[in-house]
Structures are given as C-alpha cells and as structure tokens.
C-alpha cells in the first residue's frame, strides 16, 4: 500500500499537535520516524488510523490514492491499514483468541476456518516465544509489557495488513524480546510485502532491522529526513540539535 500524507495538521481539543507533516511511504518500503517525547509521533500514527478524538484541520491522508479522512477506523483496517498501539488497551472479558478470530474475519470479510486458524496461532505464538498462556486470557488483561507488545505483533501476523504502523514496538521489552519482535516483524513484512512505518525513540530495535528511510519528528513537524546515517547522527548528537529546528 502506498501512504501519502500531505501538509497534515491534527488537533485534539483545539490544541494542534501535528503541524504540517508531509510523508510518502511507497508500497513495500520501510520507514522509521524517530523523535523525542511529545513530538507528535503517536498522534500522527493514530490520525492515520482514524482516532475519533483527533481532528484533521488541514491536509490529506491518502491510502493507495484514496482519501481516508472521515473514514471510520474499521474501514481503514479493512483497507489494509494496521496500527500497533504503544499502550494496547486492556478489555475485560474479551477472550484474546476470540478477538483475534473476529479481527481476522473482519479484515478478510468472510469466514475463517477455526482449525486452520488455531494452527496458525500456535505457530505464531511459538515463533514470538509467547508463553504463560496469554492466548487463553482476556485481551491484554494481566499481560506484562512485553507480552502486550508481542500480542500486537501476533495480531499483525494474523491480520496481514498492507501498511503496518508500529508505534514503539520495542518499548517495555528486554534485550532478547526486542530481537524476537524485530525478527518477526522483518519476516512478516517480507512475506506479505507490507509497507512499514515504525515509530521509536531508540535505535536498538533498528539494529535488527533495515529501514530504508529515516524521518525525525519534532514539535509536530518532520525536521530531518535521510537514510540510516541519520540514526547514527541521532545516537551521537541526540534529539536536541533537531528539536531546535522544529
């Protein structure tokens, strides 16, 4: 899927958070957005997914050339857009496997064979090294930080979107889990030719991945763009030199 964002301004409760972002992610490309806390990265991600509280005051979001502004989140999901949440929501009583099955049925817009589906879940949980029986529990309830992130990646693998926006897939993970998550994202993305847009503060997860384009966001704008050399510069100089540009 090709994602094109043109001069996007997004507000929440009259406060502008995203202040004119331009971004183009072509089909199959791997982009990363880095930036300090409060720079508007997560707001940008949620506005692409269609969070109802976020108001697009100016600009355009195009998915394969079609405007998604005003489109509900479920329609965007059915188009093939996926957002991995930074803080996945805990929902009491909604069984994780049933949720996954419902999600899968929604995006394929048809029946999903339960036996085949359960086989897929088993394989994916092994690959992601998900233990402690989270598949038998309520959605994200009682999951550790790491389990929540892995559960999000499991959803990514099950839903097979065309565009995956991953909001801090590495936060809350230990060193081994970061590697596992990164390797799984690589594999899923390659297998299904996904476009990937990762949001992160830190470069550690990127040492296991090969992003093609790096964007630095500060004060609601993209203030620098480049390739992986930019990550090295960030490691060396920090965000401060970019923050002033914003």
């Amino acid at each position: 899927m090709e994602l094109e964002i043109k001069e996007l301004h997004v507000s929440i409760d009259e406060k502008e958070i995203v202040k004119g972002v331009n971004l183009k992610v072509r089909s199959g490309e791997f982009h990363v957005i880095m930036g300090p806390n409060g720079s508007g990265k997560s707001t940008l991600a949620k506005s692409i997914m269609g969070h109802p509280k976020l108001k697009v005051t100016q600009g355009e979001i195009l998915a394969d050339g079609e405007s998604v502004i005003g489109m509900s989140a479920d329609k965007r999901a059915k188009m093939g857009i996926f957002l991995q949440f930074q803080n996945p929501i805990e929902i009491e009583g909604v069984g994780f496997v049933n949720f996954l099955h419902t999600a899968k049925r929604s995006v394929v817009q048809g029946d999903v064979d339960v036996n085949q589906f359960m086989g897929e879940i088993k394989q994916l949980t092994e690959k992601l090294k998900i233990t402690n029986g989270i598949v038998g529990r309520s959605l994200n309830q009682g999951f550790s930080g790491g389990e929540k992130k892995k559960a999000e990646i499991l959803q990514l693998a099950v839903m097979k979107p065309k565009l995956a926006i991953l909001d801090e897939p590495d936060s809350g993970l230990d060193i081994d889990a970061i590697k596992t998550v990164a390797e799984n994202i690589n594999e899923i993305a390659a297998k299904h030719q996904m476009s990937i847009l990762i949001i992160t503060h830190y470069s550690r997860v990127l040492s296991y991945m090969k992003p093609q384009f790096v964007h630095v966001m500060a004060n609601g704008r993209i203030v620098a763009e480049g390739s992986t050399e930019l990550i090295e510069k960030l490691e060396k100089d920090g965000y401060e030199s970019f923050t002033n540009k914003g």
Partner: protein
Amino acid sequence: MEYAAFVSQALEQFKTLPEETDELYKRYFVAMPLEAMGKAIMEQKPAQMSTQNQIKEVIESLERKFEAIIWSNGEMVESKNIRVIRSRELGSNLIEGLMTKSSEDKIAAFLQAHSSRTIMIDVPKGETARLNVLLVNTTSPLPVQILVSVEEGATLNLFEYYTSSTSEQSLLGSLHEIRSGKHSSAEINVVHNEDKNTLSLGWLKAEGEERCNLKINFVYNGGTFTRSRNKVDVAGFEANTEVNELILSAGDQKMDISTNITNTAKNSNAVLESKAVLMDRSICLLKGYASIMKNAAGSRSYVNERGIVLDKTAHLDSIPSMSIGNSDVKATHSSATAPMDEESIFYLMSRGASEIEAKKMVINGFISGIIGKIDDVIVREIVASIINEKVTTKGFGTVPKVTTESLWLAGTAQKSSSIFKGHYKYRGE
C-alpha cells in the same frame, strides 16, 4: 388472614429491612407507575389464544424441556419434584384496597398474600434434580409464590424463565422462598425476559444452612418496570452463598433492584456481584446491602456493583453498603459506573470491528464474568443470546434466537473463593 391485617404485618416486617429506611435509598427510590397504568393491569381476563403459540415458540427456540409451565390461566407440570397448589383467586375488593392505599411495599405484600398459585419445588435428602420452569405472563396478572426446598445433601439446578404473551399492560409477581439445607448444593437461575407490557415484581427470601453452596443468578432483561427485593441469609456454619445480578435496560425500562446479603453464622461466605448495562432513557436503581451479624465471626462478605451507561439520557444509581457487627471478618464493598470507554472502541475498530460490533464486544466482555458464573451451559447460551439481541436491537421480551456464538463469553468467570483473596480484614471497634 384478612388483607388489611396482612398488609399491616408486612409493613412492620419491611421496616426492619435496613435498605427500606435508608435515607439515600429513599432519595433515589423509583416510583412504581401503578396508578398511571390503571386498574387494567390487575383484571382477570380470558386467556388469549396466542398464549399457547407463545409457549410452543419459546420451548422450540430454547430447545429446553420444561418440567413446569405456568401461565396466567393454567399450568402444566411433569415432575415429581414440583407441585402446584391453587390458592384463592384475586378478588376485586382487594385490588381496590391496594389501589387506594398506593404504597410500594404493600403491592409486594399483597402479591405474597394473594398469589393465585403456589409452586412447591422439593428435592428430597441426598437426591439430585435439574428442573426448568417456564412462567408466561398473559393479559391477566400472574402472581405466583415459589417455595424451593433443597434438603440435606441434595442438589438442585433450577432454571426459571419468565416471558410474556400480552397485548395489554399486565402484572407479573413472583415471590420466592428458598431453603438450601445442610451440605446441599443449589444453582437457581432466574431469567426475566418479559415484553414492554409487563410490570414485574419480585420478592425473594433465601436461607443457606450449614456448609451449603447456594448460588442465585438473576438476569433482568425484560419488562417495562421491574421491582425486585431479594434477601439472602447465610445462616449456617461455613455456608456459602452467592448472588449474581445482570441488568440490561433500554428504551424507557425502569429497574429497581435491591438485594440484601446477611452473614448470621460463623465462617460463612456471602458474595453479591451486580453488573448493569443501561441504554437510551432507562433508569436503574441498584442497591446492594451486606450485613454481618455479631455472632458471625470468621465470615466473609463481598459486594461489588458495576455499571456501564451507554447514553447520557440513561441513569444508574448504584448504592452498595455494609453493616458489620463483628471485628473478626473480611468485608469489602465497591461500586463503579462509567460510560463506554472510547479508547476500547477505537482499539477494536482498528482491528476491523464495526462500531456496533466493538460496543457489543466491550459489553459482552464486561458482563462475561457474571454469565460465566452460570454453571448450566444451556442457560448460559440462552442468556448470552438474549443479551446479544438486546445489545443489537435494544429489543426485549421477544422469543430469543438461541445460538452458540456468544458462549465464549463465559471464559473469564471468577471463582468466588478467589474474590476474597487479598481482601483486607475488617477491624471494627
């Protein structure tokens, strides 16, 4: 006993119930619209032809064999454990008396005194019974008294399903007296799914004896107005009782539910858990009262009331309260009410669920803990189907289309024994 004398006695009895004299409760009391509904609701009328069809349709849909079917003008019983005793018919002079002295509790007292029939359910010592009772409210009023006796070491699984077949406003009254004997085990599921013409009154008194396990699950889904008063005494050493309430209201439904659990014996356990989902302009007053008596050392009591209010026009007052008479007990009460969490809806919609599907998932998840406490799988299936219908169409009182789709809801039931884990120990004065 004469009606006037009975009412007088009943009123005295009500005065002793703490929730009836509670100032906070009085402030939020939901007035019963009996006067507005007129005398028509109490009149005996010829049976409607549609009643038989309604019964047939309900049985077919629920795929359940009912050992007893009670409707306003008749009954059918096929079980050695159930007997129906006819008491005197409703007399017009008594109705007159009731209407002119419009007092809420007199109505319940009146129903208790003048139930047209008494259903006696008895499970003898050491025996096991699984019984299903269908109660159909027609244009004529249906006041029944249900006496349940589970004798020592006996096991009962009772399912009561209330439905209606009436084109005019009518009254349904059910008054329970339940006794769970020593070492007995009983699960009683009371499911209300009457239509919008039904005004429903319930009064339940239960007592659990030594080391019994008594569980009563209420589902309040139907009826234009429901008033229910429940009182459960955990009266035996190491007795366990559990009351679970599920309330779903939509449109202009009004629910007034008050339940009182009392520990009167040593090392006894009492749990009251209520969950309410309110839509549209519906109103619910939910009162949970727990008392631990002086001689109930080592006992545990838990009251938890939670609600989701979907629309700004709906109104839920949940009032949990406790009275503790012994310092060596564990006691907790809590209440929480909130609107639907928008972040949860967005999360589910981002995974492809439509807004209504997402809301259904959140509601079903919210109430799954209560549904999961119903041990009878078929009843669980019926309840899940009724709820699905309510959340999807806001309709109630119709014949449910029972499916197994919602059965997974039951996966997260919390065992009552784990409820007390980690609870603070009350240290009274």
